[in-house]
C-alpha cells in the first residue's frame, strides 16, 4: 500500500535525484521555449511549482474520497485534467489581481500550464505509487521545485552561451537540446541514491 518513504526524503529526492524534467523528460515544450530568458523562467517555474503543489493536494483528495470509493479509477485522467484546468484558471485570476507585473511576464504561458505534461505526470506518479496525502504534497512541491530548478539552470546556461559561436544549423533549439542532454547526464549521477518508488 502506501510506500514507506519519508515525505522529507521524497521532497528532496523529487527535486534532485528524480527530477521530473531531467530524468523523466516531462514538461519539455515550455522548458525549451521559455528558458531563453531568466526572468520569465523564474516566473514560470514559480507558477508550475504552485500549480503542481495545489493540484497534487486537490487531486489526492478527489482520488481518495471520490474516485477510489466509487471504483472509477478509469476516469482519473479526465478528472485530473479538469482539476488542473480549474486550478490554473483560479491562479490566473488571483495573480492578475495580486501581481499584475508577474501576470504580464507570464503572459500566455500561465494558461498553457494547463497542458504542461509535467503536472499531469506528477499527479499520475502520485496515483500509481499510492502516496499518502503528505507524501503527495511533498512530491508535488518537490517536483515543481525540481522543474523550477531545471529551467533556471538551463536559462542561466543559455544566457551565458547566447553569444557563443554555434554552427548555424544548431542555433536555437538544436544547441538547447544538446545542453539539456548534458544536464540530464549530470543528473543521472544522482540516480539510484534514493529509490522513490
Amino acid at each position: 500500500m502506501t510506500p514507506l518513504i519519508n515525505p522529507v526524503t521524497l521532497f528532496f529526492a523529487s527535486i534532485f535525484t528524480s527530477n521530473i524534467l531531467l530524468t523523466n523528460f516531462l514538461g519539455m515544450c515550455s522548458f525549451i521555449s521559455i528558458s531563453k530568458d531568466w526572468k520569465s523562467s523564474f516566473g514560470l517555474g514559480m507558477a508550475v511549482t504552485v500549480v503542481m503543489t495545489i493540484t497534487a493536494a486537490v487531486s489526492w483528495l478527489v482520488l481518495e474520497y471520490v474516485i477510489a470509493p466509487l471504483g472509477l479509477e478509469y476516469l482519473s485522467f479526465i478528472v485530473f485534467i479538469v482539476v488542473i484546468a480549474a486550478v490554473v484558471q483560479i491562479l490566473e485570476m488571483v495573480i492578475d489581481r495580486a501581481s499584475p507585473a508577474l501576470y504580464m511576464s507570464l503572459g500566455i504561458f500561465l494558461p498553457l500550464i494547463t497542458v504542461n505534461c509535467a503536472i499531469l505526470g506528477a499527479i499520475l506518479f502520485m496515483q500509481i505509487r499510492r502516496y499518502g496525502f503528505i507524501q503527495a504534497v511533498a512530491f508535488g512541491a518537490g517536483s515543481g521545485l525540481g522543474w523550477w530548478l531545471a529551467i533556471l539552470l538551463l536559462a542561466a546556461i543559455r544566457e551565458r552561451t547566447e553569444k557563443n559561436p554555434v554552427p548555424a544549423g544548431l542555433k536555437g533549439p538544436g544547441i538547447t537540446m544538446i545542453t539539456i542532454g548534458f544536464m540530464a547526464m549530470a543528473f543521472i549521477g544522482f540516480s539510484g541514491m534514493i529509490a522513490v518508488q
Partner: protein
Amino acid sequence: MNQIVLGPLVVAGAAAALALVIALVDRVVNDYGEVTIDVNHGKRAYKVRGGSPLLGTLASQGVFVPSACGGRGSCGACKVRVLSDVGPVLPTETPYLSPQELANGVRLSCQVKLKKDIAIELPEELFSVKKFKATVERLDDVTYDIKDAVFRLDEPAEISFTSGQYVQLVVPPYGTIKESVQRAYSMASRPGDSGRVELLIRLVPGGIATTYVHTALKVGDRVELVGPFGDFRVRDTPAAMVCVAGGSGMAPFKSMFYDMRERDAFPEKEIWYFFGARSSRDMFYLDELRRLEAEWPRFHFVPALSEPGPDEGWTGETGLITDVLERYIKDRIAKDKGLEGYLCGSPGMINACIAVMTRNGIAEGDVFYDKFA
C-alpha cells in the same frame, strides 16, 4: 449499468464543483469597484465599473473608438493614448504598435483591462461618432462582385462627416457566424445628403461582413452603423489632386468629387482621377463619371483596363494603372501648383502607386491613402 451512469455523473459533478469555485473566486477577485476614466486632461470623465476592457467600457458610455474586429485584438484599430500607468504592453498589442507609439503610451483599448482610475487621450472628433440605426433603402449590383448599398438613417436621422471618412457596419450574427463583428467602409455618399449613407461593398471570398451583405442583407433590413471615422480628406491647398482607385476604392472619391462639385469647393484644385480595373466586367460608374468630366472642366477621368478582352470594344487607356499613372504624371498633368496623391484600394496597389508618385516628384508627405486591410 451503475458504472455507466456513475462515471459521467462524477465527472460532471467534479467539473460543476470546480466551476462554482471559479465563479466564486471571479466574484471576489475581479471586483474592481468603480473606476474613473479621465479623458483629455479632465475635459470629460466617466465613472464606470472596472474589470472589463477599456474599448467596451467606453462604448457603453457612448464613446466609440474605431474597431474593426470588435475587440478581439486582431485589427489594431482601437489605438488610444494612455497617460496613466496601466502596466506593461501585452504581447497581443506589440505587433500593432510602432516604436514611436510605444514611446508615447499608445495602447490597444481592447487589450487594456480597467482595474483602476485611468487617464487617456482621445481625438475630439471621436465624440461626434455616433451609433446610427438605419434601414437598407437600396442594394444594387454595380459589378458582378461589388454592391452599392444605400442606407436611410432612422435614428439619429442625420450624419455630419467629411468626404473620405468611413463608417463601420455592424454585422449581426448570421448563419454559422456566432458573434457580431464590425467592418469599416468608406462612405460614397455626399455630406450634403446627410440623411443617407452609401457604401460600396466588394465580395471578399470568405469575408464575414461582405458575405453577409452579398447573401443575407435585403432591402428593408435594419442595420447599425457607427461613425464617422478617419482622416482621409481633401487637403485645402491649390495643388492638383492625383487620385487613384481600384474596385470599391471608388467610394471615398465618389463622395469627394460630387461634394466638391456641389459646393464648388477648393476652386483652384485640378482633379485627376485614375480608376483601374482588370476588364470591363470590373468597371463601373463609367457613364456617370464621364458625364461629370464633360460638365466640370477641372475634373479629368482616366479609366484604365489592364486586361481588356478583344470583343469588349474598350477605347480607354490600357495597361496597369501604375503605368498609366506614370505616363500621365510625366506628360499630361500640369505641375505648376504642385501635386498631391490620394489613393484608395488594396495595399499592393497603394504601395505601387506611392512608389510611382514619389519617383515622379510628389513628396511622400503629400500622398494620402486609405488602405483596405
